[in-house]
């Protein structure tokens, strides 16, 4: 209850939560909310590049499709990528961190060295190279992002495991004969959950941002997907006259990532009071 009260007092975090919830709701009910859900694939060349109006609040794109509808429908793809990437990265990174932190030996050492190497290469470039090597598609983009993000989970879980390993309750568990996997998954893992949640929230923002870059460079979503990054890349030929074409999808990316970052920051303040942002 204390946690909830603390969180409720943090206005920026509440704002973040509200934005995230709004984006999730929009993504879930996208075909119902969007005024022209058929504009995913249908083009209306007579209506191309119309400025914002009552009928098309965000204007229309180069094929006459309603940008408002496409921004709403794009939330689905963005969230789907983010959830998949963070989920897969967690499934890979967390067990590796537990093993690397708990056991001594060549395997554990190797895990951590590989993690360090992955962290030494800038994530964006690694993701670009991987996405291209696996022939560009949405699936490759997701896999590439996962491969760049898992080390963050490994690092965090590793640090927590190392810290907990020497604590008294683990010694006690060992004395009564608990097995290694049992201690790791039933006793150490629950103690890492809060840091994992914080990292995952920030990771959602990261995944959406980098997925947009991939889409923008033509290595993610393919036309006619209503992808935010792809839309901005398509808009470049029609600037500056069709300013609405690039502006609204970009604002959608910004708001969504902002929401996840604010929420992540707020959660971190609760989980780790040492890093308290606003004393």
């Amino acid at each position, binding site marked *: 209850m204390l946690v909830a009260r603390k969180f409720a007092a943090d206005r920026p975090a509440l704002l973040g939560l509200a934005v995230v919830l709004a984006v999730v709701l929009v993504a879930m009910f996208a075909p119902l909310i969007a005024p022209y859900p058929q504009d995913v694939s249908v083009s209306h060349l007579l209506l191309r590049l119309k400025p914002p109006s009552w009928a098309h609040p965000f204007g229309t794109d180069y094929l006459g499709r309603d940008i408002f509808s496409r921004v709403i429908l794009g939330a689905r793809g963005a969230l789907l990528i983010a959830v998949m990437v963070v989920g897969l990265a967690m499934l890979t990174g967390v067990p590796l961190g537990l093993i690397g932190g708990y056991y001594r030996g060549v395997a554990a050492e190797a895990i951590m060295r590989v993690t360090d190497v*992955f962290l030494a290469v800038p994530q964006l470039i690694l993701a*670009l190279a991987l996405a291209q090597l696996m022939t560009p598609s949405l699936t490759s983009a997701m896999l590439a992002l996962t491969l760049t993000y898992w080390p963050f989970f490994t690092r965090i879980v590793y640090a927590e495991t190392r810290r907990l390993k020497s604590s008294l309750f683990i010694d006690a568990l060992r004395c009564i004969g608990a097995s290694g996997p049992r201690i790791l998954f039933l006793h150490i893992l629950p103690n890492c959950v809060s840091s994992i949640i914080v990292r995952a929230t920030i990771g959602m923002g990261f995944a959406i941002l980098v997925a947009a*870059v991939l889409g923008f460079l033509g290595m993610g979503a393919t036309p006619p997907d209503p992808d935010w990054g792809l839309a901005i890349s398509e808009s*470049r030929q029609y*600037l500056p006259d069709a300013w609405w074409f690039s502006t609204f999808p970009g604002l959608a990316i910004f708001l969504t990532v902002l929401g996840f970052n604010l929420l992540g920051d707020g959660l971190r303040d609760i989980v780790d009071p040492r890093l308290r942002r606003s004393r």
Partner: protein
Amino acid sequence: MLRFVLRRVLLAIPSLFGLLVLTFFLIRVVPADPAAALAGENATPSQIAEIRRQYGLDRPLYVQFAVYCAQVARFDFGESAYSHRPVALDISQRLPATLELTVTALVLAIVLGIPLGTVAAVHHNRWPDILLRVLSVGGVAIAAFWFAIELQMIFAMGLDWLPLRGRLSTDLAAPSTVTGFYLIDSLLAGRFDLFVDAARHLVLPAVTLSLGGLATIARFTRAGVLETLQKDFVSYERAQGVPARALIWKFVLKNSVVASITQIGLLFGGLIAGAVVVETIFDWPGIGFYTVQAILTADYKVMLAVTLLIGVIYTAVNILVDLVHGLIDPRLREQL
């Protein structure tokens, strides 16, 4: 101190070796058939076999890896399939452009970020602080490529205040190379018109690139100053009648920037990665632009060389940051 330096440098060797292994695997193992990828879509099986032999792809992996290491040691990355010139030459000609851009962005981030963070901390929980908080979270959440395009749209296309792309206007010749930085070379050549033109071209890309760093530096400075303000010596100086302005900008700030130095080091690696996007949008002739071209045309030699280069820069900067820390705080030397 010498032992500390040596140990820190030695510690970097395993990660550099790991980088070699990683890049090797990326290029040779991840693609299903690298020879087929190199030969192109319409290659016949015999052409593919020829390429496989030519590149040594038919030999065992460990032999390929040894050959690869030897090549890297000689800076021999082969010829780019895109520009048909040696990759090492291409990179050496493009690196100064990227460095000029990233260093300018970093300076911008530091020069604006530290005062912003300090002002926010001094006005803790009042409007400058709240404003900074919004800006610093927002600065990290903005997609750089989108921000760049919006800037282009407003300041280059709409208002026509600044050039849209490139490093110099097309009717001007680059100054003779001394440092490779146009801003410095043009001044050395006494060409003030070139300097102004280069500076005007630098504004939009540098501003875009500095955004994330600015947010981070401001945030860490704010946290550092807030912490220092709690210290006893501050109350003491205040009691001694040191004017508030001098107290903050001379004593408090000096004690607060240590944490920011780590961030600045980490940022530099991030800036080089960010240059990939920014250079693509502003047609900036640096290694970021080159990397994207290489990735889009599946020019694997360039991808390899650039990934290695950036990894090495990243590692080197991290060593440098640790050394600076060791200089400032001798206790840290013992921990290594």
